[in-house]
């Protein structure tokens, strides 16, 4: 999946992407990094076709029906229980399924009968990630999937996302958290000022910035531009 020479200007005339080029690895979890407001979510909107995709710039991305897109900060229905919410997704995905509460991950089994609106922010995020992970699509887009999660739950989510990738699913996510980027199964893309400023593995990122800490590497890259 590649983006080639993509330029986009917002309706208020601010230029968001300036001849942007990016390459996404199919067999790695692609992570879009970058400061707030650089257009990470908007790029996911283009990839997902929520915003019309320019065919000459976007190559190799699946069609709309083959994409699952978890949107940042959008809740499920407050009146539905956790089980009913996931069951609804399962019914859409696989009619005549025999999905039971026992099929929920351990962390969600405890709150299976709790209404979504009564969950904490982190628990809601887990429900959303779990639901989207159950959709059978070629490409999964996650917008800050670890947002609002404690370190242990964030790890659970990233493991689930890695599992999807190992099952052959393509993944692109945005993130501001680094504690779980601990191996080279990730492909980092640092977006700033309309261009990808770094693209490569976490170890290459650390090597380039001469540090062993991803946070420091991030800050250095941000300041370098």
């Amino acid at each position, binding site marked *: 999946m590649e983006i080639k020479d993509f330029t986009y200007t917002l309706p208020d005339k601010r230029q968001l992407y300036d001849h942007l080029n990016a390459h996404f690895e199919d067999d790695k979890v692609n992570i879009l990094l970058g400061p707030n407001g650089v257009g990470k979510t908007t790029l996911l909107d283009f990839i997902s076709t929520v915003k019309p995709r320019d065919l000459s710039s976007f190559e190799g991305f699946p069609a709309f029906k083959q994409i699952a897109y978890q949107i940042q900060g959008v809740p499920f229905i407050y009146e539905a229980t956790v089980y009913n919410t996931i069951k609804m*997704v399962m019914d859409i995905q696989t009619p005549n399924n025999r999905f039971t509460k026992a099929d929920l991950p351990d962390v969600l089994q405890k709150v299976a009968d709790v209404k979504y609106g009564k969950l904490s922010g982190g628990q809601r995020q887990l429900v959303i990630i779990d*639901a989207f992970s159950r959709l059978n699509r070629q490409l999964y887009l996650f917008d800050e999937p670890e947002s609002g999660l404690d370190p242990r739950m964030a790890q659970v989510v990233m493991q689930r996302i890695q599992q999807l990738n190992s099952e052959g699913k393509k993944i692109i996510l945005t993130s501001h958290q680094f504690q779980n980027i601990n191996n080279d199964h990730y492909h980092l893309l640092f977006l700033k000022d309309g261009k990808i400023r770094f693209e490569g593995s976490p170890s290459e990122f650390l090597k380039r910035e001469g540090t062993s800490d991803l946070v420091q590497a991030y800050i250095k890259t941000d300041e370098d531009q």
Partner: protein
Amino acid sequence: MFKKLSALSKFEVNIALDDKGLFIYTLVFPALYFIYAFFSSSHDLTNLAIRYHLLGFWSYIILSGILNQVITAMISMRENNFLKMFTFISGDRRLIFYANLIPQTLVIQAEILIFDIIAAVFYRPDLEILEFMFACWLLNFIIIPVVAFYTSFLLAIPMRTQTLGVFMTGYLLLALLLSYGTTSKLLNILLVIINPSSFVVGVYSLFFAQTDLMTTLITVSVAGLAYVIVGNVIVAKMSLNSVISR
């Protein structure tokens, strides 16, 4: 397709039944006005007068129900990004629209049934009127979805949720004001084509109209079919992005 629709509709039923406040606008208000109008006018109404009274109320209940519970719900879903999320889950915007429309059609039908019982208690109508009421109620299963497609052009307008209430109230009032037609045959045809309330009145009037029966039948059939086709395209193509997003 139908399994997906069924799964989504179950969810929409939860929402539909949760917001009981909407019943005030779509059922309680017209029912109270009906009772007020009944006691403020002559009780000795002809069958034709009763029919005209009833179809005005039915037209209001259907149009206000569709505007408040289907079109406004879709626009609100677009603005809070629910539409985007559920479209990615279901794979098709139209499924979200239908999943909303099906339970709301049943809710509106329940409201009309309750209204008809109230009307029957006060009017004490003869069998002919009771048959007319029942026939119109059955026909509503077709009329209500068609009205939803009539008003689906609103989904293509970049409307903010803050202005939605005012716009819908104005649209509803204008549609009802225009629904009783004019003496001009051509203008009446035009009204049926552009105004969902005139369409509703036009369909009901097929049961008792003395003149222009064939013209009305052809107009409501062609206009209704055209709106179903065009409405489906509008829903399928409607923006998933909130108007206020960048």
